[in-house]
């Protein structure tokens, strides 16, 4: 009897193991990482870096042996648990591959093999983030950290600054644009990114909207988002109702939708709500019988597909939204090649990383313009930037932050698309011009006097040649 029970237990264990292995074998469809074939680095998990080939590096973070091509190590601090982190890794590998396939990156008199190095930071995990940046800077002697997702930038710059490492990254706070920092450039910031909401507020006002209610998760980001979106809406003339905050792990949005509907807003704007939460929240709004204008923030292809499946085409019709998908928008040869190469290498298309790899292009522009890999030379160039740089999602441009008494160009106005949902599909409307990102943000934050003083002293910035809705006269 006991032997029979044991056998039964073993059989159950085996069946369970088969089930687990089966699921795992079928898995990975969403977060699969694919290494570009020509990027030949070994992959191990030690110390949180996905690339640990120890190289004794020179002070310029490049190494060369006689007769061999020099190597340009470009580090990226990424949360490889997130779709954004995984997608950014894929893009950075692709950029490196294109250079390496073409024989290397010619900088000055030398040609470099580009070696992307990835460090897993976890998701806003200060300890893991610190360990990752220390591994990159102190152990692997990386001199350029380009692109980041999920790290804690304040921790990052506390390591990069004393070691004179160039940090070109993303930060949701203003910690990395302080004038005291020498080597940090927020090459992917959201400070000068109020253009999307500004444009859509204007469009919805034209269609008859008078009041708006902002819906955000009850997180620090959510509260900042509610404040910014509310300020944008007020600036454009919309009446802003009390925002609704919800617990970030909410799955049943019925009480939230009922509360929203009971306030009778003309428009509902979602800020920092994405994926499953966004689909469920809009679905609940429909169930609550609310009809009006919706701004869902960003709608990537998959979320839109899910949303249409949940609420139907009719409910999404006319919904204006932001997008990071450059396909069918960017026509320049270089971006088209990037898109084609991505699809050849990785098969499925994901746009989650497109926007966030903007800092790579700013780095590339600086290296090409200066023909140097010297960190101080690159920093000097970047901090006196006077033009926009073409990224995967339009132009991105660095600007000064006189409101923080930082008169160097350290903060970016990123490229962004605006579109409308028609017949259940995203239809591109326009690209938000750098000029509009910049000027609308200054308007929204009520900083025109500070910036006017700065412009009086340093002159007006110049912008990429893009159609823009705003001009400096709008700030008067």
């Amino acid at each position, binding site marked *: 009897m006991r032997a029979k029970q044991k056998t039964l237990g073993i059989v159950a264990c085996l069946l369970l193991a088969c089930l687990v292995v089966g699921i*795992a074998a079928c898995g990975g469809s969403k977060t699969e990482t694919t290494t570009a074939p020509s990027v030949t680095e070994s992959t191990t998990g030690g110390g949180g870096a996905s690339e640990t080939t120890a190289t004794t590096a020179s002070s310029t973070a490049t190494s060369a042996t006689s007769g061999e091509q020099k190597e340009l190590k470009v580090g990226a601090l990424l949360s490889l648990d997130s779709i954004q982190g995984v997608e950014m890794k894929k893009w950075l590998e692709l950029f490196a591959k294109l250079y390496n396939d073409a024989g290397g990156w010619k900088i000055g008199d030398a040609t470099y093999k580009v070696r992307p190095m990835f460090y897993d930071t976890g998701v806003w995990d200060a300890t893991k983030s610190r360990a990752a940046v220390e591994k990159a800077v102190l152990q692997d002697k990386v001199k350029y950290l380009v692109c980041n997702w999920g790290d804690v930038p304040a921790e990052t710059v506390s390591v990069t600054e004393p070691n004179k490492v160039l940090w070109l990254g993303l930060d949701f706070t203003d910690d990395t644009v302080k004038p005291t920092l020498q080597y940090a450039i927020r090459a992917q910031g959201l400070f000068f990114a109020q253009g999307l909401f500004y444009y859509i507020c204007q469009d919805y006002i034209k269609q008859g909207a008078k009041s708006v209610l902002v819906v955000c998760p009850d997180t620090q980001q959510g509260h900042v988002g509610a404040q910014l979106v509310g300020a944008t809406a007020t600036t454009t003339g919309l009446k802003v109702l009390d925002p609704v905050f919800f617990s970030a792990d909410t799955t049943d949005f019925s009480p939230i939708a009922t509360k929203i509907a*009971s306030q009778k807003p003309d428009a509902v704007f979602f800020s920092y709500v994405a994926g*499953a939460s966004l689909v469920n929240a809009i679905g609940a709004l429909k169930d609550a019988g609310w009809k009006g204008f919706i701004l869902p923030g960003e709608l990537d292809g998959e979320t839109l597909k899910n949303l249409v499946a949940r609420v139907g085409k009719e409910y999404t019709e006319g919904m204006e939204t932001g997008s990071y998908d450059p396909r069918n928008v960017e026509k320049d040869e270089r971006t088209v090649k990037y898109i084609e190469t991505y699809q050849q290498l990785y098969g499925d298309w994901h746009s989650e990383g497109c926007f966030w790899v903007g800092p790579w292009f700013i780095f590339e522009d600086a290296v090409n313009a200066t023909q140097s890999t010297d960190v101080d030379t690159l920093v000097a160039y970047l901090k006196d930037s006077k033009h926009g740089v073409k990224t995967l999602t339009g132009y991105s441009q660095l600007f000064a932050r006189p409101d923080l008494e930082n008169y160097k160009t350290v903060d970016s106005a990123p490229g962004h698309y605006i579109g409308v949902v028609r017949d259940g599909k995203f239809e591109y409307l326009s690209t938000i011009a750098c000029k509009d990102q910049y000027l609308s943000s200054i308007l929204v934050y009520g900083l025109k006097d500070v910036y006017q003083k700065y412009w009086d002293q340093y002159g007006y910035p110049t912008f990429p040649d893009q159609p823009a809705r705003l001009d400096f006269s709008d700030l008067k």
Partner: protein
Amino acid sequence: MTLQLFVQLLINGLMIGGIYALVASGFTLILGVLQVFNFAQGHFYMLGAFIAYAVATVMGAPYIVAIIASLAGMAVLGILTYFSIIKWTLRSGFFHTMLVTVAFGTIIGQLAVLKFGYSTAVVAPLIESTLQFGGISLNPGKLIVMAGAIVVMVALWWFLKTKIGVAMMACAENREVACLQGINAEKVFWVTMAVGCGLCGIAGALVAPVLSASTNMGSQVFLKAMIVVMVGGTGSMSGALLAAFVVGIVESFAFQYVESFAPLVIFALVALLLYFRPGGLLGKPLPIPGQ
């Protein structure tokens, strides 16, 4: 508050209460009969929703088939879990089995993330239109969830009157005495796991067309299921049913006034209730582990 708003909030509460009832009844059944605090219960609920998605959306089968598949799939997984994990740790005590279910739940959760990522698996609504009456708007899917929960609870009540159901209740009352009466405890245990996990499967399948399936959907519901069990009384099926609807309704109304502080209201009320009635509404006080 207008009458329409009151009714709308009440319906929201009843709908989510139905879900809590299904998950909590499975949880309380396993806790009562096996004395296993099954931390993987929320993950079974999540898997049930994904099975429904796979059967109904990917394979295009009728939704009733998806519900049956979720029930069967989770029941089988429950049996496998019992024979491969629970059975071998039961004798080691309450905390061992609890920790094992924590580990098992974590594995299921991580595998689900690996398979499905962080995106949503949307199951198209069973009925597209929204019902409107007297200024109240209602998703028919919610009515199906409520009706489904009631039907399942009635079926469970009937099941507990059968021979095996009575044996389960006997084991819940006193395992040793039940065994002395000739009840096959092992059979009772694996059937309990099958029923408890199957209930989660049904809950997941019922809710998928309303809330979609996502990998994080289980944790929140599991927390609420624990509250429901505490409020209703450990091992009490009728208590779980009553408490589930009470918690759902309180949650719905609380959000209207205090938004994300709603859980605080619920916890405060639970603390108050347990102070005056440690055994919950219709149950006995929780057993002290090891005694």
